[in-house]
């Protein structure tokens, strides 16, 4: 489903990803953990071409991200990337709902602009997706009038409406008040149970244990450990993983 080979990315002189290799099977829920600044967001952003890696390859199914790979580097074509992005859902830490559109319009936007559906058809799909995340009754609210948890669920519906093959989540609950985290996680758990392929950056252990099929631990731009959730959480092999887990468990 998703394959990453020798991904490198620097910002100026700062190397952020130093050779990431990764594979995600269809229906898998890969959980990415790691300290702040370790490159988790950058990795996700390279997976949908919001950032173009300096070198390395990304495959969505059999297709290389951006269309072509020359000498081990992605040479992106905008039109191909746009098409691929429509099939890769992305959920951001800070929701990023379109603030001038209602919840319903947020979900309809990609259907109309990208998929070129008729308004009526787009609306039907959008309402169904809002129902999917339990927010049918908030369809006509503007984002500013929604709680963080509700905004994030609308953002998930906005991605789902495009019928993505895979969904990327970048710390989807870390900007939320604790009492709102549960609603978002339960939507994500449902999604996992429905068979959605997901890559989730999160420190929510409960989520990782319940639906995660694999956990990778990232530090300083490298994947240091990888395994089943119970292995990584309870029997971490790498010292840095142990330190990190101690820190977040004591917090």
């Amino acid at each position: 489903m998703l394959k990453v080979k020798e991904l490198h990315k620097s910002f100026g002189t700062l190397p952020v990803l130093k050779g990431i290799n990764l594979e995600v099977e269809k229906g898998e829920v890969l959980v990415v953990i790691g300290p702040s600044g370790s490159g988790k967001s950058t990795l996700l952003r390279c997976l949908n071409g919001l950032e173009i890696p300096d070198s390395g390859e990304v495959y969505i199914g059999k297709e290389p991200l951006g269309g072509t790979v020359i000498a081990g580097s992605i040479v992106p074509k905008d039109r191909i990337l746009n098409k691929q992005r429509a099939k890769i859902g992305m959920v951001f830490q800070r929701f990023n709902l379109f603030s001038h559109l209602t919840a319903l319009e947020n979900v309809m936007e990609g259907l109309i602009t990208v998929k070129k559906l008729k308004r009526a058809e787009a609306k039907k799909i959008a309402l169904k997706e809002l129902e999917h995340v339990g927010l049918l009754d908030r369809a006509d609210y503007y984002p500013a009038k929604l709680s963080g948890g509700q905004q994030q669920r609308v953002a998930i519906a906005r991605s789902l409406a495009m019928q993505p093959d895979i969904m990327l989540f970048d710390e989807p609950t870390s900007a939320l008040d604790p009492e709102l985290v549960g609603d978002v996680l339960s939507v994500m758990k449902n999604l996992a149970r429905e068979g959605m392929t997901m890559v989730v950056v999160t420190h929510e252990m409960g989520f990782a244990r319940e639906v995660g099929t694999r956990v990778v631990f990232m530090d300083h731009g490298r994947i240091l450990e990888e395994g089943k959730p119970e292995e990584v959480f309870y029997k971490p092999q790498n010292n840095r993983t142990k330190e990190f887990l101690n820190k977040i468990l004591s917090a």
Partner: protein
Amino acid sequence: MDVRFMLKYLPVLAEGALMTVELTVISIVVGSLLGFVIALGALSRNVVLRSIAHFYTWAIRGTPLMLQLFFIYYGLPEVGITLSPFAAASIGMSINAAAYIAEIVRGAIQSIDKGQMEAARSIGMSYMQANFRIIIPQAIRRMIPPLGNEFIAMLKDSSLVATISMVDLMRSAQQMYSATFRPLEIFSAAALLYLLLTTIFTVTFGSIEARLAKMEA
């Protein structure tokens, strides 16, 4: 000061006021269109477009409007382009306004959170689609207050066209003062008309702002 005298001259000045409104509206429309294009140039990834846009705003904002009007009305005939006072005034004001409007538009677009563009791109929108469907509609809401101020400033600055023999409100007042030697009455009447116009602008923009504010927090 004779208020009756003042009131008597109001209708005569109103004709000049109409010209002021006409000029201001033309330069708002043309200046906004041009300003928008220049702003997009300034934000473009193309270095040439960006340089042209920066040069334009630098040159226009760095010289007085009166000089620009003189240049167009008195200077251009030297190279065979002779314009009527109205044409020269409209062109000069539009060109001038465009530079200021471009800066307002650019600032508003740049103030939109980067996450909006990323979210738009990540559902598959092209850069253009994201700009026209997501970024610009949000930026327009932020432009309304500074544009309102700019349009009011334009209305008042339009009095400078009196210097290239355009008979606007200011020049009507000057002419009438020369004819009557009643400066207090004439200029008070002109001031009333300017205030009437700026107030209409302010109220109109205030209500647009209020309507948009309902949507966004």
